[in-house]
């Protein structure tokens, strides 16, 4: 039995939703091109992309200097944002973001942009691959070892941080099929990792040290053995509750309502064979629920990257760093190990951030009666122009009508005199701002 596939029309609107959910939205014309491929080919192009090509202008900071992702605050954020904007492999980049949220590590605890970027490369390398390989690599990744005290976990003084999150957040779910004793025994299995502290350089040379490892007998999930860190991971992966946890969490990154029983069981079967993520993703991205179900709020980083893609603008200002924070998603600084709370993407504080993001994104395109093209004193043309500048996103007729009504009423008193020339560009700027902050554009 296979999971059901969407069989309705696959036009520009459906392709747009797919590109926003599985990536960072379309560049101008991209949704129409993807729609022509049909659903199966469109999904295949995302889950089996060719080699990465970065398309568009090189990123720079405000003075036009190149980014220094390892050496300057915020440039880590800008570097990744640029990758989201310019990538030709949007699902790889989107899954890198999904894993960053899943294994949420913050530089506030790590204190090294270099180690954070190394972890980011690891997430990208395994983005569509094997969850088993990802979990094993991440368990001993230097940033993770620092973040969850892996290098403080020794036979003499076990530290349970990683053991607990390994089960609670990464593989099983809170209290789902393990006990406090399992946490303690997993911590013992995970002992042995250390680094060398070099003055001026910090933690270097992360390695396994047999002397620090507890080689004794452990009992984990009722199984006995002299388990080590690899066993700790494998035992979680082999736990009967793990496939369901993974499938539901992964599904939740793409579809806002839970899968039906039959779909979930089939996704679990796909995953269980060899822990590969790609077939599960392919099934989720073809599923009717993705195309016919309720809309999802775009995460702030996705919203901005997609807005820049639509505008054809590259990363050219460091303002995206503080604006990202204000909108609720400073990359490399998730709020805690549980990752970002997507229930907060549209609260009163973060919405204000999104409004500011929209304003900054549109500002280089700002119209005026003193420069640039003449804006016609015509509500229809102004709304059409706003849609064009952000790459012709699909919006509902009622949203279009609201924008038109706003343009009409704003221009009503400006038929003649100086207002007839001065108002249209102002109204056009406002319509653009309203368009990209509308529910239609904030969600997908």
């Amino acid at each position, binding site marked *: 039995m296979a999971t059901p596939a969407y069989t309705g029309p696959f036009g520009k609107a459906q392709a747009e939703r797919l590109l926003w959910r599985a990536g960072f939205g379309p560049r101008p014309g991209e949704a129409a091109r993807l729609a022509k491929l049909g659903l199966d080919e469109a999904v295949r192009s995302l889950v089996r992309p060719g080699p990465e090509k970065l398309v568009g202008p090189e990123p720079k900071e405000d003075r036009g*200097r*190149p980014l*220094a992702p*390892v*050496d*300057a*605050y915020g440039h880590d954020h800008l570097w990744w944002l640029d990758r989201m904007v310019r990538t030709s492999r949007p699902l790889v980049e989107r899954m890198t973001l999904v894993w960053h949220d899943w294994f949420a590590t913050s530089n*506030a605890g790590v*204190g*090294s*942009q*270099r180690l954070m970027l190394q972890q980011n490369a690891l997430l990208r390398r395994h983005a569509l691959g094997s969850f088993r390989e990802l979990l094993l690599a991440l368990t001993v990744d230097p940033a993770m070892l620092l973040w969850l005290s892996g290098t403080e976990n020794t036979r003499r003084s076990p530290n349970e941080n990683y053991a607990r999150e390994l089960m609670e957040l990464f593989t099983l779910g809170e209290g789902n099929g393990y006990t406090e004793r399992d946490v303690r025994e997993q911590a013992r299995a995970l002992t042995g990792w250390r680094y060398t*502290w070099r*003055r*001026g*350089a*910090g933690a270097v040379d992360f390695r396994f040290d047999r002397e620090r490892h507890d080689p004794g007998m452990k009992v984990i999930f009722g199984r006995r053995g002299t388990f080590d860190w690899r066993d700790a991971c494998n035992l979680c992966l082999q736990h009967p509750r793990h496939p369901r946890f993974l499938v539901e969490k992964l599904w939740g990154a793409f579809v806002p309502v839970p899968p039906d029983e039959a779909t979930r069981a089939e996704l679990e079967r796909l995953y269980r064979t060899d822990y590969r993520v790609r077939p599960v993703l392919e099934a989720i991205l073809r599923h009717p629920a993705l195309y016919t179900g309720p809309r999802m709020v775009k995460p702030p980083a996705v919203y901005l990257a997609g807005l820049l893609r639509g505008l054809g603008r590259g990363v050219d200002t460091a303002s995206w760093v503080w604006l990202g924070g204000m909108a609720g998603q400073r990359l490399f600084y998730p709020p805690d190990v549980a990752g970002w709370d997507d229930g907060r993407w549209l609260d009163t504080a973060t919405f204000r951030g999104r409004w500011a993001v929209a304003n900054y994104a549109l500002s280089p395109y700002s119209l005026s009666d003193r420069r640039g093209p003449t804006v016609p004193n015509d509500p229809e043309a102004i709304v059409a122009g706003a849609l064009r500048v952000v790459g012709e996103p699909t919006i509902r007729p009622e949203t279009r009508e609201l924008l038109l009504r706003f343009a009409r009423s704003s221009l009503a008193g400006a038929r003649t005199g100086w207002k007839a020339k001065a108002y249209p560009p102002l109204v056009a700027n406002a319509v653009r701002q309203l368009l990209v902050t509308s529910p239609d554009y904030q969600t997908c």
Partner: protein
Amino acid sequence: MRALALLLALAAAGALLGAAQGAPAPQRMQVTEDEWSLALSRQRLRPGIALIEVFNLGQDAHDLVLQRRAPGARAVRVPRLDYFQRRTIRVRLAAGTYALWCSLPRHRERGMSATLRVR
């Protein structure tokens, strides 16, 4: 060997290209502060202009002093930063060895010091 020669040729071409486009971007380094350490994102810089960013990730306030180990060398000071504050300074570095430390009482002794080589 041939690969190496090609790489060197490419590097030389890159250098020429850089020169043709005007002054190269200044080199950058980040110093993260914590209790009780300083960590430099680079252990070595070239002589010339550098942008050095000091970023306090510790719980307490810290400052930073940068001074070349040479008679009469002037010290560059970055004032106290609270948690998560940062400050970037622009300095002209001469070849030699620089000492970096936090000058708050006893912070240097506790480990807040580092060495930067410029050459």
